């Protein structure tokens, strides 16, 4: 990316960049999360969205309850097998490019629920980008996860169609 502010241009100047770098810069700073909250972690996630921790500082405050308008799925809470097919379908409905955060011990590996009904980690059926441990994790930990997603978008990006 280059900046040209030659006075010959009247002081207004212009940027040179690639379409990919520009699109990914936009993506990383305007993540639209799809909150998939099923348990107590969802309360902590709401705290992250609210004013005290304020995820909007990272451009990610527009929680979209429609998967078709979202590009970041935050799975927070115990996922049972009965819920897993719903979770997978909602993920499938999100447009590309998309990212997934597994928030809390339950989504990372089943947490305390080593039982017949609970999925032992949502990576059994979803591609997870960032895992956040904790029961529930502190809001700072989720903010850190969002920042890691931003870093991932910045470094690896996603193709521009």
């Amino acid at each position, binding site marked *: 990316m280059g900046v040209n502010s030659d006075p010959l241009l009247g002081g207004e100047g212009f940027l040179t960049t690639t379409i990919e770098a520009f699109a990914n810069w936009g993506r990383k700073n305007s993540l639209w999360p799809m909150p998939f909250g099923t348990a107590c972690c969802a309360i902590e996630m709401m705290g992250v969205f609210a004013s005290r921790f304020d995820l909007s500082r990272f451009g990610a405050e527009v929680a979209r309850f429609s998967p078709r308008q979202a590009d970041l799925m935050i799975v927070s809470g115990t996922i*049972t*097998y*009965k819920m*897993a*097919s719903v979770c*997978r*379908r909602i993920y499938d409905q999100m447009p590309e490019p998309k990212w997934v955060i597994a928030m809390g011990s339950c989504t990372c590996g089943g947490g305390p629920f*080593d*039982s*017949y*009904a609970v999925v*032992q980690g949502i990576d059994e*059926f979803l591609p997870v980008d960032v895992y956040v441990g904790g029961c529930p994790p502190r809001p700072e930990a989720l903010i850190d996860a969002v920042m890691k997603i931003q870093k991932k978008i910045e470094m690896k990006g996603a193709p521009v169609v």
Partner: protein
Amino acid sequence: MSVDLEPVINSLKNEFPQDILGVKEYRGETTLLVSKEQIFKFCAYLKDELDFTFLADLTAVDYLEVKSPRYEVVYHIHRFGPECEENARIRVKAKVSEDELKIDSVTPVWSGADWLEREVYDMFGIEFIGHPDLRRILMPEDYEPFPLRKDFDVRNREASKRSFEKALEEGAD
């Protein structure tokens, strides 16, 4: 519970002399063991004549290798008094054997029993005769095992995975 349940039990004993198999009192809680053939009439009498209008809970216990017959269906029934201290609660149990996993539904008596009986059916496989809509309530409908039975391995996720994969395929259309 400070209410004296003596008149209630006497009235029940009069009405069902053959069918009350036992009365237990423990720490102020009264438990009646009733033969399962009469459970519907028994519950209807409790509600209509003795004013036990509220079914607080309906569940079951699996006494595998502990008791025979293997299952007990448990009813917690409540009567509201005019004052809070006059509330009364009674526990009714009926034994259900493994060979005949059936008991009469009490949904016609207390409509609140509907989902409770469905849950017992879901978890233990006990069939409730006369239930209006006996389907699984918590587990997926095509799930086969009954997970709260003592001989079910609680960590066995195979059946859940099968239901999950089937739901995925059906959702893909």
